[in-house]
């Protein structure tokens, strides 16, 4: 797109089943897609991707840098807008570490008990990963 300006602000919106958690602008957004982190800048190519567990990070917006922990979601990236649909989204300060620890143990237990059921393994892995990411996000050292 020739007429796309080189710089500008992305409109970022984070929507959860309960409410609209965030409606802000940013220069760049980091997204924890299923196949690894990706970063969207102004003028990005349209993309739809599934999000795994991890942190959504906003950089250089009008309200400064912001981080949110999300667990499963979907993102639509358009040249001037990023809309994130997240099943769970929390501010790192809102994370209950004890609960996350418990979820981690739960996931490990499920993994042990999964037997030969492939789907159960996937589920156990998803829970474990989610709990690990949650703890990392609460500690402020998410990868």
């Amino acid at each position, binding site marked *: 797109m020739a007429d796309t300006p080189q710089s500008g602000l992305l409109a970022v919106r984070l929507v959860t*089943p309960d409410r609209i958690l965030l409606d802000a602008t940013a220069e760049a957004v980091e997204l924890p897609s299923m196949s690894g982190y990706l970063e969207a800048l102004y003028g990005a190519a349209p993309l*739809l991707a*599934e999000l795994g567990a991890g942190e959504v990070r906003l950089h250089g917006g009008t309200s400064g840098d912001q981080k949110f922990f999300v667990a499963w979601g979907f993102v639509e990236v358009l040249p001037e807008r990023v*809309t994130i*649909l997240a099943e769970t989204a929390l501010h790192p300060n809102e994370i209950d570490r004890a609960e996350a620890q418990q979820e981690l143990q739960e996931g490990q237990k499920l993994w042990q008990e999964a037997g030969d059921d492939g789907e159960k393994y996937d589920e156990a892995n998803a829970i474990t990963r989610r709990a690990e990411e949650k703890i990392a996000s609460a500690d402020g050292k998410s990868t």
Partner: protein
Amino acid sequence: MANVLDLRRRIRSVKNTRQITKAMKMVSAAKLRRAQERAIQARPYAKMLTNVLESLVRRTDAYSDETGEILHPLLEEREEKNVLVVFVAGDKGFAGAFNSNIVKAGQAFIGSRIAEGKTVDMELIGRKAVTHVGKRFPMAVYEKKTEHYDNELATHHEIIRHRSQPIEVAATHADLLHSLDFDRVSDIARSIIESYSRKEIDSVYLVYNEFKSVIAQRVVVEKLLPIRKLGLQEISAAEEMTKEQRDAVARAAVSSGISANIPEESVIEYEAKKFGTAEVDYIFDQSPQRLLRHLMPRYVTTQLFHAFLESVAAEHAARMTAMDSATTNAGEMIDALSLKMNRVRQAAITKEIIEIVSGAAAL
């Protein structure tokens, strides 16, 4: 004939009742406002999820090219032999005919399916559903069978259902509605999907009170599974509000300061409708099968969540209306009693005057 003192006592008691019903009405109005707000806040997510799924299903065929298998079990239609009915009633009474309407609609629907020789399972949501319906039917009995083979290295779990009655209760959730959260709804959806996938049930219907706005409500029987058309409600039966009911609820809403109109679509909701539908070629970085596997259960959860939110709002609206008419009735009763009391008092005075006058005349 009642004396003045008795009547005064009755008036006082009715006045107290009126105060209580009025307070209950205001409480319900406040709760309704919050519930309505919540239902509206939940809409963008639901809409966006539906959009993504729609565009996914549109881009890919429902059947795999190579194997000819259906891409997702929830899209598969099979002969309806066992039906799951999800009953969504209220938590408390004092809500007029709210709970009994739902029970009636559900029973009529179940009756029709039983008449066709099908069997029915029920999933009961809300305390009143559990107390009204749950007590009358047996709980479903499941047996979990675990097989070990390959020298105990591998295990296989199987859940077997033992049915004894044509109508059984699959599960009850009495305390879900008063602290409704997405995770718990997600657990319910998962269990429903599991029993659908293992072919224990062939279709799922929701019986609940739909709430579009205060004056646009109805009791509906909505088909949840199999999914025939995404984002489209498939209503099997609906009972609209009568004109009197609509007037009553509109009056109650206006007197408690709630708008009776359908709330206007917010900017965000409008934009949510466009989510994933821009006229561009999106890059999809996962395979459709994989995406469908993750999206489908969420779609079902969102549908359930939405129905529950609407039902909660409808329950508060019903209670508000019931309490509003109770307050009006109490007012009318006070007026009638006051009139009667005044008459009795006046009669006593007149009698006394007559006595005095005739006494004086006799002198």
